[in-house]
């Protein structure tokens, strides 16, 4: 795949593990593929990783020598047993002070350059890396998905396919996916560590995000911004599949019984803690539902958190657990 060229080279990825080594390492199982941050499977996340490695390398170039210098000074000039010569008056040197200011300024200058480059490369509204990769692969029709976060679930609408899901995202690999995101209640962060970074999903506002998956697989997505009592259960599984498998999946969902009208959406949007990760499918979606939700929210529509989910949510959780136990996905 052409976008592979954008992934950090092997040695660079190894180096990005350096800070971990520096910090003392850790439990490292199954070859490190639990380090979602360092195991990118999409063009955006690969670009982000590339720049992360660059950033860390440049910083280590300064910090490691400084650290060694400090340790050396501490040993060499210690009173008990150190070999350094004490100079009780030395407190100034133009050459050193130029160095002291120069090194940070140069470092910050270099990092700023790369930072700005990176920001434009993965700009959620117009990620040049995705655009370039799609052009190189001659992909013509990207996939549009509308995302609405509720308390505390994710609604994914595929407008062109006329289907919708709750807490399950399925995307074809190798095709750019463009998201429009909004929230019906409070702010969430849309986040799939191995595919794409965080973006705030804000009520009454529409933001965009894009991704391009380069390897099929199942990835975890979740909200990263605290949004209330059910926040910890706000995950959705993301499945990246081949184009054929995606078409088959769409056809299957199109056979689902439920339809997503605004009235049905209001039911979904009622505060719900999806303790058992249940998934729902809708075969028809009211047209313009996304815009309708944004407009309603802007006009003051809220889905208040009942007292039962704040002060005393224990009972609520028990009832919910019992209900979910009966009809699992």
């Amino acid at each position: 795949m052409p976008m592979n060229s954008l992934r950090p080279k092997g040695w660079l990825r190894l180096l990005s593990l350096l800070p971990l080594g520096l910090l003392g390492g850790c439990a490292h199982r199954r070859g490190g593929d639990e380090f979602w941050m360092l195991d990118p499977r999409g063009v955006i996340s690969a670009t982000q990783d590339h720049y992360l490695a660059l950033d860390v390398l440049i910083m280590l170039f300064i910090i490691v020598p400084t650290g060694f210098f400090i340790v050396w000074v501490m040993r060499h000039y210690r009173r008990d047993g150190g070999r350094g010569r004490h100079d009780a008056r030395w407190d100034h040197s133009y050459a050193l002070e130029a160095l002291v200011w120069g090194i940070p300024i140069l470092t910050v200058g270099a990092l700023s350059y790369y930072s700005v480059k990176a920001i434009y490369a993965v700009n959620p509204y117009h990620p040049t890396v995705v655009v370039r990769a799609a052009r190189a692969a001659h992909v013509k029709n990207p996939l549009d998905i509308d995302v609405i976060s509720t308390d505390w679930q994710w609604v994914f609408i595929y407008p062109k396919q006329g289907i919708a899901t709750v807490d399950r995202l399925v995307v074809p690999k190798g095709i750019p996916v463009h998201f429009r995101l909004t929230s019906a209640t409070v702010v969430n962060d849309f986040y799939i560590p191995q595919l794409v970074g965080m973006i705030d999903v804000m009520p009454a506002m529409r933001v965009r995000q894009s991704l391009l998956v380069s390897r099929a697989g199942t990835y975890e997505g979740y909200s990263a911004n605290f949004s209330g009592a059910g926040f910890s259960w706000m995950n959705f599984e993301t499945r990246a599949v081949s184009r054929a498998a995606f078409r088959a999946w769409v056809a299957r969902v199109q056979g689902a019984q439920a339809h997503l009208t605004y009235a049905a959406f209001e039911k979904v949007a009622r505060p719900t803690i999806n303790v058992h990760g249940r998934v729902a499918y809708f075969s028809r979606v009211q047209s313009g539902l996304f815009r309708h939700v944004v407009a309603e929210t802007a006009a003051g529509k809220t889905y208040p958190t009942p007292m039962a989910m704040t002060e005393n949510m224990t009972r609520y959780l028990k009832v919910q657990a019992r209900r979910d136990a009966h009809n699992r996905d």
Partner: protein
Amino acid sequence: MTHGTDNAWEHPEVQLAGGGYVAAFVVGLALMGLSFWMVRGHMFAPAGLAIAISAVAAVAALVQCVLLLHMNVSRTQVWQTVALVLFIPLFVLTIGLTSWMFHGLYRRTMMMPAAHAGAPATQAQAGGA
């Protein structure tokens, strides 16, 4: 008291009072009147008008700072002036950067009727970037 007299009102800061107050009143009111007159008569296009009244406001504030608040570098006032000068960039930064970031945010996230009607996400994104 270290200024050497028993009368508190002989303190140099009290002695700063003077005819500048009348001037501040006249100039201040005249400047505000000027702004009012410019806006009433629509002397410039809205953008130009906004710049003009902002400039007048800045001048009026400066006049008041000098004549009413006695911002100068005399011995009694120098630290007041230094503090004000240190703070002015912060006022500008706060309002300026806030306006800038929210201008962008509104442009990128608000679903204005004209901005996106019927446009598929892919086409709108180049404009929104």
